[in-house]
């Protein structure tokens, strides 16, 4: 079977695969983003317990590989009596793993906001929450975006691990096509292009966000 015919025939599955990949990436990234902030803020808490806990969670999920985490969530957890649908496993594993990395980004960016800004908020008597929300985070945000972008692309590229847990992502679908046609070159070339397009779209979005955040700080083009 020629690659092209097979490709056209399996377009529906490829489209499914792309959707799965994008869905897992976005949901995973969303959870990771939330966790990044929760863990990143907790890591700066004044309470030793909160700090220690956040630290432990971060070290644990950063320290074990995503592959192993997925395996645990999918295969081991049901034996213990909890069964998550595959996509939920994926989102949870991506969220925890990249959330742990992201929390370091958040922590670093918050630390990079000049201390003087924090002092100004104290002098204006804002509550800790107001300080964070109104002054510190808006300034830290543009700094976080480039490293977040790196993480997002890494997350996108981790989605092939999904085939381990019965979710057929785009890599898996293209692999099927590759087996069916024996045309490794064409299949992988298409796959490279798909990933590049997806990743580049993400990069463009992130660049846009960064420019927006910087404009709000009066940096760059207003």
């Amino acid at each position, binding site marked *: 079977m020629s690659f092209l015919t097979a490709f056209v025939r399996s377009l529906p599955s490829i489209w499914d695969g792309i959707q799965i990949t994008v869905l897992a990436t976005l949901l995973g990234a969303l959870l990771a983003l939330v966790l990044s902030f929760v863990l990143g803020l907790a890591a700066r808490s004044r309470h030793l317990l909160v700090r220690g806990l956040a630290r432990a969670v971060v070290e644990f999920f950063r320290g074990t590989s995503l592959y192993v985490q997925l395996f645990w969530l999918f295969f081991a957890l049901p034996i213990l009596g909890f069964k998550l649908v595959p996509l939920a496993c994926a989102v949870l594993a991506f969220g925890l793993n990249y959330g742990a990395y992201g929390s370091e980004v958040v922590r670093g960016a918050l630390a990079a906001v000049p201390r*003087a800004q924090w002092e*100004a908020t104290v002098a204006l008597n804002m509550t800790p929450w107001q300080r964070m929300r*109104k002054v510190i985070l808006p300034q830290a945000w543009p700094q976080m975006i480039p490293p977040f972008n790196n993480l997002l692309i890494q997350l996108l590229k981790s989605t092939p691990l999904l085939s381990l847990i019965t979710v057929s992502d785009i890599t898996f679908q293209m692999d099927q096509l590759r087996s069916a046609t024996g045309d490794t070159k064409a299949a992988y070339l298409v796959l490279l292009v798909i990933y590049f397009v997806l990743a580049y779209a993400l990069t463009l979005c992130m660049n846009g966000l960064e420019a927006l955040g910087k404009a709000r700080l009066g940096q760059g083009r207003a």
Partner: protein
Amino acid sequence: MLTDNPARKTSVSPVSTAVTFDQVVKRYGDHTVLDHLDFEVRQGERVTLIGPSGSGKTTILRLLMTLERVTEGVIQVNGQPFSGLPEKQLRRARRHIGMVFQQFNLFPNMKVLDNITEAPVQVLGLSRDEAAERARDLLDLVGLADKADVHPTRLSGGQQQRVAIARALAMRPDILLLDEVTSALDPELVQGVLDVLRDIAQATDITMLCVTHEMGFARDISDRVLMFDGGRVIESGPPERMFSEPEHERTRDFLGAVL
């Protein structure tokens, strides 16, 4: 530049103390910055702190603003002890105090008007409109009525510092702390900021604690000058006397180098 303001000085009859430092010690590690420091500032008084670099002037203001914690001793504000309070009460106590920083520290993520209205809205619970009105009055006072919708990064240093003063005043503090508010400015811009502060000193009864190297300004607005060295007040008095006939040799040396 040395026009005095006899009107205000006679109208003030200071009765109660605004700030009391009682045997205050501040150490960083084993480096003692303030060494059993004692002094008082009466309500409505304008006090200037002078002294060599590293003598602890900034530290005093930062302790008052609760940006640092005292190592020993007690600070009182309006007769209430102020050090060692839990965060919540601290926040209530802090309301009486405003501070203007050497580096302005405006929030770059907000326009000028929002810089001024943010705290009144968030902390005092004013409505946005009320706060904006108050902010516009203050911008008028500092001569920047037309810059309300500009980003602070687009302003000159002198303009930024005047916005910072307006921001501090928007909280209607009883006590205003000023830490070398002109030393980051170009010489030509210094005058504008000092003029604004002089106007405020004349128009209100606010208690002021200034750290400055502008001796003209110190002479001009202050009721009293405190000379610091070695973590203590080594000399204090009205500016006329301090500048013309300093008692301590250290004060004489210092003034000789700076004036």
